[in-house]
């Protein structure tokens, strides 16, 4: 019953929505409502106004930079929230005992993975991922890419290092307090770019008024690069914060202690 009732409801909802799909625009129609109005303006003016060939980057860090600033802040707040949620333990009297699950002894002993030597392969792959991340970050205006992707790739490198070879000493250690601070630094770089524009006499995040002796279009590129560096640092630090915060506290059923 518990499984059938929601299924019936959902099937009814699906059928109803399939009947009334008329208000949605046709797929691939260039003159549909979402594909006209502002979009044409973005496509036609992005390159000349913002000096960025990649229109997606032009939209998110130039035309809608204020929006992206708060997205970055949300990311930072998510990292802080993970740290705060996991800051305290529940009191011992309010806690329900773990039912100890006896560890099943495998007949074959510990599993040995012989297909890939992870200690050789991971150090080979990691620099390539990081190099690609840097490429994506600095080429975000010209080709496909941007700060969010670069941050995710950099965070992934750390995750790969921590989860695949946990016993190896990392060159860079980022415990959760430091990585939270790093996320704050990333957000701060973003806001600082906006404030620098104000110092040059413009409004917040108006890259043309950056106080640097450059051509106006080059100022646009510089401002976008600064903002993307901030975004990349914030996203990377937040991913690391979430990973570290949870890995410290997580308790598996088959843990020995």
């Amino acid at each position, binding site marked *: 019953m518990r499984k059938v009732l929601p299924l019936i409801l*959902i099937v009814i909802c*699906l059928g109803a929505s399939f009947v009334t799909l008329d208000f949605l*625009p046709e797929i691939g129609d*260039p003159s549909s409502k979402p594909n006209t109005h502002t*979009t044409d303006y973005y*496509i036609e003016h992005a390159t000349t106004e913002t000096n960025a*060939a990649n229109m997606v*980057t032009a939209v998110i860090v130039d035309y809608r930079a204020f929006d992206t600033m708060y997205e970055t802040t949300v990311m930072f707040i998510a990292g802080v929230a993970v740290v705060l949620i996991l800051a305290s333990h529940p009191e011992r009297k309010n806690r329900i005992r773990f039912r100890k699950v006896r560890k099943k002894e495998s007949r074959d002993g510990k599993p040995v993975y012989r297909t890939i030597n992870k200690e050789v392969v991971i150090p080979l792959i990691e620099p390539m991922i990081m190099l690609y991340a840097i490429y994506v970050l600095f080429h975000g205006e010209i080709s496909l890419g941007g700060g969010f992707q670069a941050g995710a790739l950099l965070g992934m490198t750390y995750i790969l290092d921590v989860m695949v070879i946990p016993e190896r000493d990392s060159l860079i250690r980022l415990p959760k307090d430091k990585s939270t601070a790093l996320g704050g630094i990333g957000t701060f770089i973003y806001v600082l770019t906006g404030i620098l524009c104000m110092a040059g006499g413009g409004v917040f995040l108006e890259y043309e008024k950056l106080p640097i002796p450059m051509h106006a279009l080059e100022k646009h590129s510089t401002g976008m690069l600064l903002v993307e560096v901030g975004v990349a640092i914030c996203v990377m630090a937040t991913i690391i914060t*979430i990973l570290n915060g949870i890995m410290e506290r997580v308790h598996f059923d088959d843990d020995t202690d």
Partner: protein
Amino acid sequence: MMTQIETILAGKGIYFLTLLLLTLGLYGIIVSRNYMKKLICMNIMQVAVIFFFLCFAQKNSGTIPVAMKHIVHAVEYINPLPHGLMLTAIVVSLGTTGVGLALLTRIKEKYGSIEEKDIIEGEKQFR
């Protein structure tokens, strides 16, 4: 008759698929009793919404939204706006999933389990 169905499927069929994905996630949230599974289903719903947005960006015979010298008309590029919006949404969904995982870690510490049944039983002990 067949051609009518074909035009409907070509024009609007993808919306049905995204709705299917959305309701699949909703069904999972309602039915599953494990909180981790509920979180995964929430992620599926987020992916469905992202797909739904990206459907609007599509244009027939359009190319990626990176400006090239020999392509000048706006009709020939796909819509960059939904891609930009969803790019940030994907990253923010990562953050929300992280917060959800932290909450699950906390629940597991208090109740020793993330099964709904065990948590309800454990809550009765405190009364």
